[in-house]
């Protein structure tokens, strides 16, 4: 028993840091807008869950939304630096599975909180183990389409299409959990080959921009999930708020409410893109690439996810506000570009200073969001 506890602690020591950093970012990205915006609309956790039981569409949307957000973060538990060495140590299965379950449960905390506040303990357990099992099986399914993909399909059908009684769901998800985690641990490091290359020789600006986007799409999906989560929850809350309390000055309200989610959506890309640029520094300097191309490619890449999400959010928000789709999309797109520009320049400024830290970056981003919110309200 003592040895198992020690092993769990050691596995946590290796894997917890990268997993918890992203899990925390996801929790903040989802929880703050959810708390601020949904509380004002009287939307309770129990209502959301009851609604999901009544409608298969809502149930699928709720589960799919969360799985898209949490899946990339959960994957880190299986591919984080040090996980190769852990596999080579051939640890006993029970403590290893325990470590993975607790790590994955930490990622699922917002999901757990939703069910803990609005459902019975058995249903909460069923939701937790079900979400972990589905995410783990989807990691394995990429490498083993026959075995894991079939199990994934069966579990998804049971949970989403059949909506079984809580006890049945809990038992089946609990039985699937160790199998799914074992499969994910076995297959996560097998990367399927990419079939198509997405580039061709072009000008420096386009090449650098594409290079940054490929990093975001292939390596930073958990950050993109956080960005998506922040903007999606913010937009949903805003839509409910606009329906409950219609206003003639809806555009300033839309810009003010979405300032924080859009700033967060831009901020999550800054660190990986700066790292991307740092890794190319020797090449860029030796080839004397123009600084203007480097900075513009970086800023465009930072702005791309948030402005795309802003445009999509404009479509959603136009359903509740007396604004045309083109007006709301255009305004939010421009707003996202401006916010991403400010966040990106702040990140670059800190990068060039010797005493930079994550805390300083977050403080600056918070200030940008606050100023933007206040500016939009005052407009």
């Amino acid at each position, binding site marked *: 028993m003592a040895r198992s506890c020690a092993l769990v602690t050691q596995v946590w020591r290796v894997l917890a840091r990268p997993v918890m950093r992203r899990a925390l970012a996801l929790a903040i990205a989802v929880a703050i807008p959810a708390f601020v915006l949904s509380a004002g609309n009287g939307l309770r956790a129990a209502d959301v869950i009851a609604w999901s039981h009544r409608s298969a569409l809502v149930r699928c949307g709720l589960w799919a939304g969360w799985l898209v957000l949490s899946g990339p973060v959960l994957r880190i538990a299986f591919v984080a630096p040090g996980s190769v060495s852990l596999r080579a140590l051939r640890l006993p299965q029970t403590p290893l599975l325990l470590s993975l379950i607790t790590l994955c449960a930490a990622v699922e905390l917002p999901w757990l909180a939703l069910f803990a506040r609005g459902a019975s303990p058995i249903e909460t357990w069923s939701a937790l183990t079900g979400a972990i099992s589905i995410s783990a099986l989807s990691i394995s399914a990429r490498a083993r389409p026959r075995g894991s993909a079939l199990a994934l399909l069966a579990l998804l059908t049971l949970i989403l299409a059949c909506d079984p009684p809580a006890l049945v769901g809990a038992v089946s998800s609990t039985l699937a959990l160790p199998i799914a985690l074992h499969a994910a641990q076995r297959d996560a490091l097998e*990367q399927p*080959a*990419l079939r198509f*290359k*997405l*580039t*061709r*020789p*072009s*000008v*420096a600006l*386009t*090449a*650098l921009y*594409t*290079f940054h986007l*490929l*990093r975001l799409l*292939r*390596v930073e999906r958990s950050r993109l999930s956080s960005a998506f989560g922040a903007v999606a929850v913010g937009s949903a809350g805003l839509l409910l708020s606009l329906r409950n309390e219609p206003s003639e000055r809806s555009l300033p309200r839309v810009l003010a409410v979405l300032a924080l989610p859009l700033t967060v959506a831009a901020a999550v890309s800054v660190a990986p893109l700066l790292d*991307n640029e740092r*890794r*190319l*520094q*020797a*090449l*860029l*300097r*030796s*080839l*004397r*690439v123009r600084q203007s191309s480097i900075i513009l490619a970086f800023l465009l890449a930072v702005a791309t996810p948030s402005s795309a999400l802003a445009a999509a959010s404009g479509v959603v928000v136009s359903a509740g506000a007396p604004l045309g789709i083109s007006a709301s999309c255009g305004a939010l797109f421009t707003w996202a570009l401006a916010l991403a520009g400010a966040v990106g320049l702040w990140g670059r400024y800190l990068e060039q200073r010797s005493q930079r830290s994550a805390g300083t970056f977050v403080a600056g981003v918070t200030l940008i969001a606050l100023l933007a919110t206040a500016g939009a309200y005052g407009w």
Partner: protein
Amino acid sequence: MVIVDARGIQKSLGRRSVLRDIDLRIVRGERVVLLGDNGSGKSTLLHIVAAVIEPDAGTLQVCQSLGFAPEKPDIPEHLLVSEWLDLVASLKGLKRIPALPFGVHELAAQRVSALSFGQRMRVSLASAWLGDPELLVLDEPSNGLDAASQAELTERLRGSSALIATHDRHFAAAIATRVIDSSRS
């Protein structure tokens, strides 16, 4: 024609003086090999010539067209080899990728993360050669290469102008038109 003209180059890393009053002149067709102990400043001089770092003092004139391969090929792992080569070609202003040396065309469809150290070195050298630059700046280019690639490297270097740092005296003897040896022994 002079392609590198460095005078009085000085560089300190922290408190340690790495390069003191270094003069270096390379003309077209010359292959200058730097031999020396670990920490003797070979890589630092190469980084300065390739404009990766700036000297603390001294003047430096280098031709515009340059190919640089660092000692540790730091190629981003999220790319395919062909995507990396497209990126380098774009930054060098090339419109298309020419025939690739070191058998890199066989690796083009692979992820960089799946390559061995030797394969990454081959990709890094092929990137340096893209566009046939006037000057090649190569840091320990024979590290990790198999015998066939080493032979190809030696052959290709014979037609180029280059500044090379290496520990390998046989390799140096095979390619150098001039050797600068800063070894203590």
